[in-house]
Each structure stands twice: as C-alpha cells, then as structure tokens.
C-alpha cells in the first residue's frame, strides 16, 4: 500500500513540481495517473520508489517512510519502468540486461536463470536473448526495459508512458499483460496520455494538473466528463465522444468500453426492430 501525505516537492533549480498531493493506493489496485505535460506525474511516481525524497510531507510504502530507506531497498518492492528505454540499456545481450537488477539484488545463479527465462518468455523476447539490446527496434527495446524490471517480480509495478512507440498489436499485448499481472495481485500504476489505452483497461483514474491532484475516481466517470478531461489536457475516448453525440437519443454517458457500447447499441436496435 502506498500512502502519499501532503507531498510537496521542489526541484533544486526551484521548479515547484508538487504542491500538496494526498493519495492512497491499495494493494492490488490498478491506477492510471493522467494529466498534461509538466503536471508532476513522473515526479510523483519517482517518490514512490524513493528516487526523489519529499521536500515536505511524506510517502509511505507498506508503512515505511521513503526517506528512511535506500532506493535499492524500495526498488525490490516497487519496480519503476522509465519512459525511455535508452536511459537504461547498456548490456551486451538482452539476457544480461535482464539479469542486471537480479544480480544487484543478490539472487543466486539458479534463480537468476529461472527469472530471466520467465521474463524473456513473458515479453516474447526469447529469440533475442543473445542479441544486443542496441540492435533492437524502439518497441522491442521498450519491452526489454519492461522485462528487466518485471524479472525481479516487484509487488508494485509503475509504468511511465508504456505505450509510446508501440504499434497497435503490441499495445494490445501490453494491455493483456498488465491486466494479467493485476489479476495476479500486483499493484499497477500507469502514467500515460493514452486515453484509448486506458479506456480499455478501465482502472482508477487520477487526474493531475500543475502539481496537484484534480480528481480521482472510476474511469467511466472521469473519462466521460468533458470538463474534467479538458482541464487535464486530454480528450474523451472515442466511444465516449460517440455516446456524447448520441446523448439526445437517450444513450447513457458513462460508457468508454467498446464491447459495452456495442451491447447497448445492439439492444437498442433489437428493441426497435421488435416494435416494428
């Protein structure tokens, strides 16, 4: 469980990135943090594994104040996958890249081998095991970065902009994968602008603006509220836009999922046909 209490953070250059954030994320929750560029999303998640320490207020991870422990200690629980994979890839082979963190955490050889195999398989990277990460495409590098964090099986997984540079198929795979991890009881926190991606996942949404949390709640309530969405500099998901247009015909507004939308429309068509 992550508890953020009255968190203020000012960067050394004087930029006030967070201005009093209060937040509670339960174990096993799936949360999406959204909002415009510079709203403080990445700054907030960097507090959750101790990379940044609060200027004021505090952050508790499973009851432990992040100021009192090292990043390496927290990282075992909280896996943070950075936005740009090029900021972390350095090994000669994908295999070594994935085992880097495992070695840092002092796992024995056998466990490392097992976990690397598991991560390679999970992210469909088996055929690249002996390839240099620098030879891979952008999307593949991103998956290697993800694999290198998932390998140590952290309880809380934070993904910073996971969908950037991924084609539709990969996004869909990623979505399935994230949902699967969530079902296994992992806490998932996603930082993103990708409204469509989030609409299909249907997590709890936290909207941020200028260092503060604007609102937090269910995806179907927040992502269908045009005013809120506009204020956070994102747009309505396409399904929500469609249902907004159909508002006058008595369609509900709080729909963001394509399958649910199809069901409602089908139901409507059927009842009309029956009447005729």
């Amino acid at each position, binding site marked *: 469980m992550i508890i953020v209490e009255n968190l203020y953070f000012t960067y050394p250059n004087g930029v006030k990135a967070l201005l009093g954030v209060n937040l509670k994320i339960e174990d096993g929750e799936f949360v999406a943090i959204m909002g415009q560029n510079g709203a403080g999303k990445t700054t907030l998640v*960097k507090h959750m594994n101790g990379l940044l320490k609060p200027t004021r207020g505090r952050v508790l991870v499973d009851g432990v104040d992040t100021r009192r422990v090292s990043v390496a200690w927290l990282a075992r629980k909280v896996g943070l996958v950075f936005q740009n994979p090029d900021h*972390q890839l350095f090994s000669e082979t994908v295999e070594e890249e994935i085992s880097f963190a495992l070695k840092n955490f002092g796992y024995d050889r056998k466990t490392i081998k097992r976990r690397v195999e598991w991560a390679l398989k999970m992210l469909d990277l088996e055929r690249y095991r002996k390839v240099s990460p620098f030879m891979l495409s952008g999307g593949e590098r991103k998956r290697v970065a993800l694999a290198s964090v998932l390998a140590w099986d952290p309880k809380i997984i934070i993904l910073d902009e996971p969908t950037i540079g991924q084609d539709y198929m990969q996004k869909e795979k990623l979505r399935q994968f994230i949902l699967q991890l969530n079902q296994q009881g992992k806490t998932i926190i996603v930082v993103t602008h990708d409204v469509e991606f989030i609409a299909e996942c249907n997590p709890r949404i936290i909207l941020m603006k200028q260092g503060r949390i604007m609102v937090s709640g269910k995806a179907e309530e927040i992502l269908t509220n045009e005013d809120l969405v506009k204020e956070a500099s994102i747009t309505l998901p396409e399904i929500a836009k469609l249902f907004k247009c159909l508002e006058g015909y008595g369609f509900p507004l709080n729909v963001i999922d394509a399958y649910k939308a199809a069901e409602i429309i089908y139901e409507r068509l059927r009842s009309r046909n029956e009447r005729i």
Partner: protein
Amino acid sequence: MSVFDGFKFRSTSSPIHKLDPRAKFIYVCALFAVAIIFNNIIPLLVLFLIQIPIVFRAKVQKEWMRSMKGSVVFAIMIFVVNLLSLHFYAGHEPLIYILERSSAMTIRFIVLVQSFSIFFLTTSPDILSLALEQSGVPYELCFAFTTAIRFVPVLAEEAQTIMDAQKARGLEIESGNFFRRIRNYIPILIPLIVNAIRRSLELAETMESRAWGACEKRTNLYMLKIKRNDLLLIIFSLVLLTVSIYVSIHVYIPSLASLLYTATV
C-alpha cells in the same frame, strides 16, 4: 550538477556581459600567464581579489560561488599534494614556508578556475562563436564548438535520468571499494555515450534537411566591434602582463610569513 552551473552562461545585462569576447579572452589569457609567472602568495592573492569586483559588477556572484565550491575538492587535493612533496623534497625549510608555498599553488588554481568561470558565465555561446568566426576560424568548427557547449546541460540532465533509471534497478553507485565504484559507473556511462552518439547523428540529419551549409559564404546579422570599454580592458590586460613580467624579474617579493614576522617585531 551545481559545479556545471558555475560555468554556464547566465543571460543578464551587465557591463561585463557587454564586453567583446575577444577582449575578455585576452584578459583571461593575461591572467593565466600572470598566475603562472608568480609562485608567491601575495601577487596571487592580489590576482584573486582584483577579480571579485568584476564578479559583482557582472551580477554572477551566486553562480561564481558554485564554481568556487565545486573547485574546493581539487583545491584541497592540490594543497595536500604540494604540502607532501614540499615536505619530502624541501623538508629542511621551515614549516611556515612550506604551508605558504602550498597555499600559493592552491590559490593559483583557484584564480585559474575563477577567471574561466567569469569568462563563461558572462559570454553567451553565440557571441563566442561569432568572435571565433570573426577571428578567421572556419564556421564548421565554430558551430561544433557552440553545439558542444550547448549540449552540456542536456547531457547533465540525461546523466541524472540514467542514474535514476539504474538506481531503480537496484544499482548502488556509492557502494563497494574503489574499483567496485568505478565499475558501478559503467551502466551509466554506456547509455550516456550511446545516446550522445545517436543524438549527434540525428542532429546531423536534421541539420542537413534544413539545408545546413547551403551557402558558401555565410553572413551574420550581428557583427562584433571593439568598443571603448573593450579597448580599456585589453590595455589593462597588457599592462598587467608587462608589469608582472617586470616585477617577477626585477623586484623581490617578500613572503607573507616574513612580512607578518617583521610587522610583529
């Protein structure tokens, strides 16, 4: 990264900022030469002190302090090395002399850092490139030079992000013995270098696509002219240099210790 801030151009308006970079460069060179000529503490202290009004006139005290703070570690190292080597090679001299000599060397280093800091804090990379160009350096080289300076903060920021990313993967940079610590920097240096190379290739492509080098002869909107203040600074630098050479050859400079000794007696 605060040490870098001590050398990064600050865009403020001051008489020092307005000086021609060529004049400032001559001043820095003269100062360098003078600092090398003397190894007594008194002239070196004077050199250090005459630059302080310049710092305040240029309104860069805060940034200048950063460069000074950043050089403390090196200054201490220089002091210790001098102290030890003087102790072993000139051990017969009194301790006060050895201390004064080591301090002089340290102050010399600080003077060098200080003049560099003032030069870069008050000279914008663009103007500097312009000065180089007008001094006959090929434009390609000037451009490479300004680009290099311009990307220093970008690299510094990137290094920070990479460090964060690797720390998030359990890397403890400050752990282990000396060799272990050096090895700890490999996961940071490789992405940094690879990204720098990638970026330079991208930069080259974007520049080509914006017709870089299309004209044989480039013209500039702004031209640098030596003004009265620049001339004064150049004359001051030359006078300082000449006087220093004369003094170093013909005048005996007492040590601070002996001065203090005669004062107390």
